[in-house]
């Protein structure tokens, strides 16, 4: 049962254009959402996050939108740059009974920026 879904395994975008990566979730107990970026042979790196009480969070070229009623979030990157080429993972967090924030990841979207 995939609780966090990224239905697009790959996406190609022209340099300078907007990249939009999508993520859907099923568990209404998730209270925080994060995007991680991963380069080959490296661990995932935190990019941006959003609390479930907000619908938008912006950080420079990166904006995350959350639609709670649709259980959908998206990451917008504008303008896209060649260095943005990586695999992007959507992750959702819920507080476990043990006090930790338990992350559930999607399967990732490979973004390729075309110069």
């Amino acid at each position: 049962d995939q609780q966090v879904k990224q239905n697009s395994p790959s996406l190609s975008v022209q340099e300078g254009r907007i990249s939009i990566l999508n993520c859907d979730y099923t568990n209404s107990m998730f209270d925080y959402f994060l995007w991680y970026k991963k380069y080959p042979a490296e661990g995932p790196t935190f990019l941006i996050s959003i609390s479930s009480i907000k619908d938008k969070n912006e950080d420079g070229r990166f904006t995350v939108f959350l639609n709670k009623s649709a259980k959908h979030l998206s990451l917008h990157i504008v303008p896209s740059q060649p260095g943005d080429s990586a695999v992007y993972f959507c992750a959702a967090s819920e507080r476990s009974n043990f006090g930790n924030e338990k992350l559930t990841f999607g399967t990732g979207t490979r973004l390729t920026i075309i110069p």
Partner: protein
Amino acid sequence: GAGVSQTPSNKVTEKGKYVELRCDPISGHTALYWYRQSLGQGPEFLIYFQGTGAADDSGLPNDRFFAVRPEGSVSTLKIQRTERGDSAVYLCASSYFAGSNEQFFGPGTRLTVL
């Protein structure tokens, strides 16, 4: 400062052997997590430590998997009687405290079981 480090970066072993994977978290981070990432999948939670104790081991797939963190810093993930299905990248992450949403990941150990 230094990030999360993991050793070895690659481990090749034969079916049935025992392996140990090491994680050195960011200094001062009390929470430590192990994840497993299989090909084409996102990281999947295995176990969480707060200090020295394994507070949440609900993600361990079976009793062949075990992890320790004896002094509240370095952690070792131990896999007994390895199977080909254990082949994956094992990721370690740490955070300043358990309630922190942002986890910092190491580069992972790629385990291949032949």
